[in-house]
C-alpha cells in the first residue's frame, strides 16, 4: 500500500511518518506542499510540525496549499487520510474534521508520554488497536486543547467519531490524565464517513520498541488492513 506523506515548510515529523510506514513493509513517499496531485497514493498522512511557522493559527495557512486541495478531493472520494499533531490541526482548519485545537489550558508546551483509550474500534484507524489496554504514545504540542461547540460534541459522540481520549495507565478517563484541557479528554476524532481521522499524540514516534513504545504501530496497521480489504473487495 502506497502512503503519501505531505511536506510543508516547517513540517518536522514527515521523516518519522515515512519511517513508521516503511518499517511495516510498505512504501511511503514525501509530497511537497506545492504538488497538485497525490499520484497513485492509497493513503495520505499529514505529519506534525509547525507548517508555515504556525502563523495566524496552527494549520490555517497549510489548509490553502495546493496539495491540500488534492487531499480534499481524495477525502471526498473516500480516500484514507490521517493527520498527526499539526496534521490534525490542518485537517480541522480545512473542515475535513470537526472542531478546533486551541492553546493548552496551562499555556505550556507539553512533551511527554500519555495514555490513550480507544472509544471506537470499528474504524480504518483503530481496528488493530489492542482491546485490553490503554496505548502509550508521546505528545509534543502547545496547542492541542480540543474544542467544539456543545452540538458538535454531542453529535460526534453519538456517531462514534471520538476515536481516542486521554486516560491514565489503567484506561480511566480522568481530568488528571488530560494534558491540555481538551473537552471530554478528546485526543483524536474522525469524520462522519470514518475515512479521515486526526490525533494530537504521535503514533509515528512510537512505531518501534526501540523508541520506548510501539503502541502507535497499530494505527498504521489498521490503515493497511482497511486498504487491503478495499483492494480485495474491488478484485472480487
Amino acid at each position: 500500500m502506497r502512503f503519501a506523506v505531505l511536506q510543508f515548510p516547517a513540517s518536522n515529523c514527515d521523516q518519522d511518518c515515512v519511517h513508521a510506514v516503511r518499517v511495516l513493509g510498505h512504501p511511503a513517499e514525501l509530497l511537497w506542499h506545492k504538488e497538485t496531485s497525490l499520484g497513485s497514493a492509497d493513503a495520505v498522512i499529514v505529519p506534525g510540525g509547525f507548517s508555515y511557522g504556525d502563523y495566524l493559527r496552527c494549520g490555517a495557512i497549510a489548509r490553502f496549499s495546493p496539495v491540500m486541495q488534492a487531499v480534499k478531493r481524495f477525502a471526498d472520494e473516500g480516500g484514507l487520510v490521517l493527520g498527526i499533531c499539526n496534521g490534525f490541526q490542518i485537517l480541522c482548519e480545512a473542515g475535513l474534521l470537526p472542531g478546533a485545537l486551541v492553546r493548552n489550558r496551562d499555556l505550556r508546551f507539553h512533551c511527554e508520554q500519555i495514555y490513550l483509550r480507544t472509544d471506537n474500534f470499528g474504524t480504518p484507524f483503530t481496528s488493530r488497536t489492542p482491546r485490553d489496554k490503554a496505548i502509550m504514545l508521546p505528545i509534543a504540542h502547545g496547542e492541542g486543547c480540543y474544542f467544539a461547540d456543545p452540538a458538535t460534541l454531542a453529535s460526534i459522540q453519538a456517531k462514534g467519531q471520538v476515536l481516542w481520549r486521554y486516560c491514565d495507565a489503567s484506561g480511566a478517563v480522568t481530568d488528571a490524565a488530560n494534558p491540555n484541557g481538551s473537552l471530554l479528554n478528546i485526543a483524536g476524532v474522525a469524520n462522519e464517513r470514518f475515512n479521515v481521522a486526526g490525533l494530537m499524540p504521535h503514533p509515528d514516534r512510537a512505531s518501534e520498541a526501540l523508541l520506548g513504545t510501539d503502541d502507535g504501530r497499530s494505527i498504521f496497521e489498521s490503515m493497511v488492513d482497511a486498504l487491503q480489504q478495499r483492494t480485495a473487495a474491488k478484485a472480487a
Partner: protein
Amino acid sequence: MKAKIVITPKKAVLDPQGKTVQTALEHMGYTGVAGVHVGKYIEIDLAPGTDKVAAATALDDAARKFLSNPVIEDYKLEIVD
C-alpha cells in the same frame, strides 16, 4: 484606506492567556477587572482607488474563511479612510 480586523476568542472557548493576564493585572493592583480576552489585530493596507463596499465584502469573506476560525473565534471588520 485601511481594513482593521479584530479577532477575539469566543466566550465559550477556554482563554488561558486572558485569564493569566487578568491574574497579573490583579497582582499589580489594578482592581475592578472582570475579564480579559486576548485576541489578534490585523491591519490591511488597501491600494489607492479601492472600492470601499467591494473591499468590505471581499474582506468579510476572507475574515470568515481564513483570518479567523469561526469554530473558536469572533471577528469585527472595519474599513477606515
